[in-house]
């Protein structure tokens, strides 16, 4: 029976050893994992919160094109879009100390940008000017232009201008809520869930708004789609 007395300490030691090995290896495997976008942003945000102002530049460079795109497509004016995108970043910078990392930084920033644009639209309800960005030659867009050029036998530059005008007019004819959903889903490729978070509504509402917005857009652009 003296062996039995020895078994328990041995088992105890074995457990201790295993937990020790785990404690050593766990942090190593954790850091070796690739950080998700959300975590990476959160780390950068924490640096900014700790006083590293330059770290905010990384976030601006990372998201400036997407933020500009959403603002531009909501208001269809490139000068105002530039100004409002900067304003959105400044607002985010000012209130970054209050960002707790519960949602992703990207969703939070998008919400600021969307709200800034909506406030602008509300203020300038009666005096709106549209000014467009140049369409860059991309494979998808050039295909569309080829089809339309063949249909209408119009020269490409003229066709681009006409098309751009019609598209922007059609977008502006939508209600602000419908426009926001279309822009975020169709142009910025966000998921229903992300849009719901940004617009502070349910996924069902997003789906329904998207459905009606598409329907309205289709009727507005009927002559191009036929």
């Amino acid at each position, binding site marked *: 029976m003296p062996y039995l007395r020895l078994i328990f300490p041995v088992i105890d030691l074995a457990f201790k050893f295993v937990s020790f090995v785990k404690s050593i290896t766990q942090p190593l495997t954790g850091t070796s994992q690739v950080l998700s976008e959300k975590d990476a942003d959160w780390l950068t945000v924490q640096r900014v919160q700790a006083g590293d102002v330059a770290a905010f*530049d990384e976030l601006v460079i990372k998201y400036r094109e997407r933020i500009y795109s959403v603002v531009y497509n909501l208001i269809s004016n*490139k000068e105002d879009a530039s100004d409002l995108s900067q304003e959105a970043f400044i607002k985010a910078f000012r209130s970054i100390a209050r960002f707790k990392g519960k949602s992703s930084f990207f969703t939070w920033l998008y919400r600021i940008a969307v709200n800034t644009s909506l406030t602008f639209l509300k203020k300038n309800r009666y005096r709106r000017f549209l000014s467009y*960005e140049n369409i860059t030659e991309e494979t*998808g867009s050039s295909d569309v232009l080829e089809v339309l050029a063949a249909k209408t036998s119009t020269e490409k530059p003229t066709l681009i201008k006409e098309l751009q005008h019609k598209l922007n007019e059609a977008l502006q004819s939508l209600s602000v809520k419908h426009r926001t959903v279309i822009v975020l889903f169709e142009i910025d490729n966000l998921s229903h869930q992300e849009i719901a978070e940004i617009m502070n509504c349910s996924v069902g509402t997003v789906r329904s708004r998207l459905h009606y917005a598409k329907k309205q857009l289709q009727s507005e652009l009927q002559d191009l*789609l036929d």
Partner: protein
Amino acid sequence: MSKQPSKLNLEQLLDLKRAEKPTDEFWDGFQKEFRQRQLQTLIEKESVWSRIPRLLFAPSGVLLPLSGVAVALFVLVINFRETTPLHNEYYQAATLIQAASPPSVAEVEVEIHTIDLVEEPTDIALASAISPPASFVMDLIPNDEPESLSYTREFPTSTIPAEHRAVSALVSYTIARDTPTFGRPQTIGF
């Protein structure tokens, strides 16, 4: 040779919107302008008025009672300043006027207009009232109109003690035309 689709759908049209992009030069300017605005934000001092609500409603739980005490002290000090000096001033003046003997020389007169209880105004010679050491001194500056003889000193009702409130709200001084001080700035003391 690739075959192009003859019909377009909405998604394809919206692809064109995705292709609306600013140039690379635009982003250089954008970044520069953003840095300027960011710096401006950093050096911008918050105004006192914008800081007050945040301090009052700070979640720390320390500033709220402190702010409450500060506000209470402020109210007390303002109240004290508003009532004390004028209250004493009026009280001393009223005591002296009541103790004064009837007028012998009508050089300067003080009229006490009653509000409720005293109906008739009483003339008291100020010269005889000055006999005790002056406890209330007031600069009299003639009115703009050369013919005017009267100077008034108004006591706001809130500064008059409750027991005297009915007696007087307005003391006026009249200087006779033939006195040497007529028409000049002068100091009257009780």
